[in-house]
């Protein structure tokens, strides 16, 4: 029983990481229907910006996170303008392939300039406290990452549902042409979407960097794919869905490693993706919306 509780705690903190990345994924998809495969790599860039701000400028972790979010918001807007905007009228598969290209571009540009070696966050960037509650080990970084994920989800949900920008986003998401007719600046709205999504990725990147202590240029690939699974599981495009999908995936993976075979963990994660796409492609929170004519 104790072991099960510990595994669930492990799963929740792993899930919080997936949820953090999945939030940005799902938001960009929700607004412009693009699976931004470069999302995990924007997260990696964010982790590096955070790392350099801590190690070279000596800032604390909060300032580092703000720097990373600003830098990645800008990066996100640039990526959108350069790579995706010219393809807005092209097929969705063209945009998808471009996203993979952007992803590889970010990975290997980072390797070229910063070497493939891992980098280590300086000791004490985040003073870790371990707690033992009735035999279950939890650390303050687990709690921090868990609360951050929930907080960011609430803020994101608020922006999308209750602000003018959010209303514009939803309008663009529903019908781009109609939105233009209603006087919404579609280009700006999409830029804002990318800025927010990339800033979220950066926040996740810095947190993951601090959480595992090390970062490297390919750190975004696997968590990025897992976050994609989480987003699909919860219902892609639905913000609370990303959150729930992340936690479910985290707990499932932990249980597979803990009670089955640790090597089947990734197979289970991607097996879920296949199952969801076969059985309920809209995900747990998805509603089947019939095409209106």
């Amino acid at each position: 029983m104790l072991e099960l509780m510990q595994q669930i705690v492990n799963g929740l903190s792993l899930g919080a990481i997936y949820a953090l990345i999945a939030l940005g994924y799902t938001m960009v998809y929700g607004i412009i229907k693009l699976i931004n495969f470069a999302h995990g790599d924007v997260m990696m860039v964010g982790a590096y910006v955070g790392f350099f701000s801590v190690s070279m400028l000596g800032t604390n972790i909060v300032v580092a996170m703000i720097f990373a979010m600003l830098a990645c918001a800008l990066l996100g807007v640039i990526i959108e303008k350069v790579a995706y905007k010219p393809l807005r009228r092209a097929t969705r598969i063209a945009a998808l392939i471009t996203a993979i290209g952007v992803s590889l571009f970010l990975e290997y540009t980072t390797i070229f300039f910063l070497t493939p070696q891992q980098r280590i966050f300086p000791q004490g960037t985040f003073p870790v406290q371990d707690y033992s509650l009735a035999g279950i080990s939890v650390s303050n970084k687990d709690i921090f990452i868990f609360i951050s994920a929930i907080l960011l989800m609430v803020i994101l949900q608020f922006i999308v549902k209750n602000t003018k920008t959010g209303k514009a986003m939803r309008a663009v998401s529903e019908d781009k042409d109609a939105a233009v007719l209603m006087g919404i600046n579609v280009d700006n709205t999409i830029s804002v979407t990318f800025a927010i999504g990339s800033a979220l990725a950066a926040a996740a990147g810095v947190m993951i960097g601090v959480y595992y202590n090390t970062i490297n240029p390919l750190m975004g690939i696997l968590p990025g794919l897992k976050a994609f699974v989480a987003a699909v599981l919860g219902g892609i495009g639905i913000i609370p869905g990303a959150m729930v999908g992340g936690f479910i995936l985290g707990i499932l993976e932990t249980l597979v490693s803990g009670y089955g075979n640790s090597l089947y963990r990734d197979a289970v994660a991607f097996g879920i993706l296949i199952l969801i796409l076969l059985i309920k492609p809209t995900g747990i929170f998805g509603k089947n919306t019939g095409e209106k004519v």
Partner: protein
Amino acid sequence: MRVSRKVVWLVLLLFAFGMVAGCGGKAGGGKEAAAEEILIGINAELSGAVASYGSNARDGALLAIEQINEQGGILGKKLKAIERDNKSSADEAMSVSADLVTKGIVAQIGPLTSGNVQGCTPVMMDNKIPLIAPAATAVSVTVNEKGETLDYIFRVCFIDPFQGTLMAQFAYDNLGARKAAILKDASNDYSKGLADYFKKTFIEKGGQIVAEEGFIKGDRDFRATLTKIRSLNPDFIYVPGYYEEVAPLIKQARELGINVAIGGGDGWDSPDMVEVAGKANLNNTYFTNHYSVEDPNPKVQEFVKAYRAKYNKDPDAFAALAYDAVQLLVQAIKDANSTNPEDIKNALANIKDFEGVTGKMTIDEQHNPVKAGVIIEFKDGKQVMNTRIEPK
């Protein structure tokens, strides 16, 4: 036109003379060298990705040659090294070997990495000249794909998986462990080999393996598996991976309250270990390695002193292994009482109980040395030699 035709003839004539003269000179030089000097080829990574391996090994080999010459050489002849840079590439290593064999070397020391040694293998086999690899640890270096031993290829380092055997002996005999858990990098042959040898030896000694789990390269979260291992109460955990994964793994193990001894192989040997895992978390962790400068063995200390005096730096494992490679070759020349590469090869294959800096070694039928290793322990973030383990 006339003039230029004359010039062409002249050039051709000169060229022909040059060829004859060149050949004559070369042959003469070879004979002369054979008369008074024994030529040893050093094919090392002096530039490129692993330049530090090669340059340290070269320094170690040259020290050995210098010492032997000071003692009067062998068979009344002095040793002479011909060193060449293989630029850390297998292709280059092959052309270096092809060049060295034409110079009349009796044997080649190097290259350092397994891949580069394999680049030279065909040249050495075709020319029937022995190669002694100081640090090529891959199993496939001394055997062909059919599993037959390559006659002219030898090494002085133990093969990778042998470290598993040494760690099992250490865990069982020195730490008193009886229930071990294994956590290996399932995406890596090095790690799987170490784990297999560890398991085999530990069970043979009477120990029990309570869990055998895996992770893959790039994993950063091991808590689920560690929680499972924690519930099985092992008294030793074997993690034969590389430091990128092992460091966060040890950190998470300690965070989960797993305080038992953790062991691994030379993939742990990196300054990043302490930075990522933290000093306190690394206490009570051990890994196997080829050699340690701290080894109190007088033979090691003598070598360390001589190396420091000559180069003003500490010898690393590559320097020590290359030093041993030269000494082993000298032993073989003495045993064979000949500098004929064929005789040297036969003597190398029969070496028993050769006392090297990196331990006493006996060459087995696959040309791998059966030899001792050292156990390095982390103490407050410092690597400290714990003991030397002799194979049983």
